[in-house]
């Protein structure tokens, strides 16, 4: 029993820290996104609240909490309330296995990567629940689009993850990071990285693949009817989802917490990890404010006709390459 206490304590601390991190991440990203969008569009962005508007998101948060939660008349009430909560849970859980640094990780288990992918796909369910319970045709459109989109883009994500798993022979996040001690996998697997990143954009419903919430067609997609905190939970979940996708990309391709050695590197490796993750997230923001939206059939075609065949070829080449590499090494 006594040996369980530190584990439970660690898990508890992590749960609290991670939920807080989800909110802080949304605040930071919300601010950065608005500022970067403003820079791209040649305007100052939020400037009024605090120096350079850094407190804008705090004020927005207070406003959103103060808002009334309106439930449409014919909506399915319990499901309607439940959907935003459910959207937040699956993005907090995978933080358990994310290795911020060598020591900063709640729990490293051998199927960590699969755990993340599995939990993250619950996200689709929440969008369906939100879309269905709103009793709004636009919401339902958004939900249906989201299902098709997520199903078709999960395949290339998994296939490109599989390439790395083949190379390292492990699903453990920490193990994959440690395997990149000498060289980051983006140099060995550039195509897998590109495929993963594009599919990840689609998984997080970001522009140019933001069809579930395409505002010029579906007003706001699955969260049309949500106001106040329900809406903000969806937004926080979206940013947390972005963080997840980018942190997986960092672990798999960009060497995780590897970088120049800092003092107390078992902990300060988190600095490199977070830097890489936020750079990737800012690339996502950059893409969002630059590109128009693709059409739905083009989106699915893009996945099934281009991403999946390419990632299959990449996977086959990886398998052959590993075999050749091993036999050559065996001969030497």
């Amino acid at each position, binding site marked *: 029993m006594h040996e369980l206490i530190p584990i439970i304590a660690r898990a508890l601390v992590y749960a609290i820290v991670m939920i807080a991190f989800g909110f802080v991440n949304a605040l930071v990203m919300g601010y950065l996104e608005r500022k970067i*969008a403003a820079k*791209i*569009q*040649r*305007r100052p962005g939020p400037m009024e609240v605090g120096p350079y508007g850094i407190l804008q998101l705090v004020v927005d948060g207070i406003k959103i909490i103060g808002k009334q939660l309106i439930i449409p008349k014919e909506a399915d009430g319990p499901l309607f309330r439940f959907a935003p909560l459910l959207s937040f849970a699956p993005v907090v859980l995978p933080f358990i296995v994310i290795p911020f640094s060598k020591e900063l990780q709640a729990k490293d288990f051998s199927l960590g990567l699969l755990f993340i992918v599995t939990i993250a796909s619950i996200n689709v369910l929440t969008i369906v629940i939100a879309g269905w319970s709103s009793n709004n*045709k*636009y919401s339902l*459109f958004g939900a249906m689009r989201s299902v098709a989109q997520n199903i078709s883009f999960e395949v290339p994500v998994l296939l490109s993850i599989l390439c790395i798993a083949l190379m390292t022979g492990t699903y453990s996040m920490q193990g994959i990071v440690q395997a990149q001690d000498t060289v980051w996998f983006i140099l060995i697997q550039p195509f897998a990285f590109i495929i993963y990143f594009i599919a990840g954009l689609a998984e997080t419903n970001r*522009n*140019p693949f*933001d069809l579930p919430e*395409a*505002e*010029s*067609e579906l*007003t706001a997609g699955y969260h049309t009817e949500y106001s106040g905190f329900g809406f903000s939970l969806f937004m926080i979940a979206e940013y947390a989802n972005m963080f997840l996708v980018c942190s997986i990309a960092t672990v798999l391709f960009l060497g995780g917490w590897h970088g120049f050695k800092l003092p107390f590197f078992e902990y300060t490796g988190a600095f490199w990890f977070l830097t890489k993750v936020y750079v990737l997230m800012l690339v996502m923001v950059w893409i969002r*404010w*630059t*590109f*128009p*939206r*693709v*059409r*739905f*059939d*083009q989106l699915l*075609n*893009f996945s099934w006709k*281009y991403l999946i065949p390419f990632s299959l070829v990449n996977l086959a080449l990886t398998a052959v390459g590993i075999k050749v590499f091993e036999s050559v090494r065996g001969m030497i």
Partner: protein
Amino acid sequence: MINTPDISITPVPPGPGEKAAKAHRFYLNLGPQHPSTHGVLRVILEMDGEYVLDPQPDLGFGHRMHEKMGETRPWSQFFANVGRMDYVNAMAFNHGYAALIERAAGIEVPRRAEYIRVITAELNRLASHLLWVGAFILDLGAFTPILYTFDDRESILDILEDITGSRLTYSYFRVGGVMKDIDDTFISRTRAFIKQLRDRFPMYETLVNTNVIIKNRMTGVGVISPDMARRYGVTGGVLRGSGIPYDVRKNAPYSVYPEFDFLVPVGKNGDSMDRYLVKFAEMEQSLRIIEQALDKLPEGDFRAKVKRIKLNPGMTSFSVETARGELTFFLMGDGSDTPYRLKIRVPSFSNLSVMPELCSYMLLSDLVTVMGSFDLVIPEIDR
């Protein structure tokens, strides 16, 4: 990279399958408060999944009785109304109405006034085109271009504000001329603006027009054949996009347009991309007209001395080319200063009338693209 749309749904023939197919259908209410209808247009869509089977526009939410107002008060009191019909291109409406009254009363306009009219009308046309380019790309999901086009449009509005006193709903034209003469500041600012916009064109070209997603979203979407365009009487960029070189400024010239050297760009396929590129090319032509007009600007009066006007009994009409197409004012006078009948033929109405035929069996996203490519101004339709 991505194919042109493959519309696999065809109408179900009458028979056993019809009922089952109809059970899937539902109605979707697009508007009147939808982000992509740009105003108060309501479109009732009969849908099957993501496919639009039958779009029916429902008009009249912004009806303000402009025509009736024109018939119940003297022409001079109606003048402020014309700019409110199409608030994006008010100068063209000013031009149409002022020229109509001049024709009905037999008034000669000084040449300098005509030149000023052309310059300001073309500047306003540019403002309208710039607004539309941004709003159309916004419909396709890219938020950034509209802020750049607004930046350029802002320069035009500033220039026009200086001489007209208003930024959007101008009443700058007077019967017999214009309200106020233009000065050297106006001329130098306009020349600076021409250079500024010319410098911007390559950026729009590389960032927007050649973007692969934009191309795929527009090419082959909403093809209007020349025959269909003629049947519905569409005008303006929509007609020219279908390859018919009709522009009132060329085909039935008014004002001093025959004195300028400009081209009428036409499209080839009649799809949304052509409509977009046609308008884009028109901006360059407008710049050319303004340049030439500034070079040739004659000295003289900017307004004719006009005594009390009586509208001649009988029918008069006057057509101008607005940013959206042919605008016709039709007036029946009875010898007093109040028109007996005033009919306004607006371009957006006939352009929108294509939609039910054009957009049946089309994806919802394509409907939004097509609607955007028409450059609709709803208050002009409802008036």
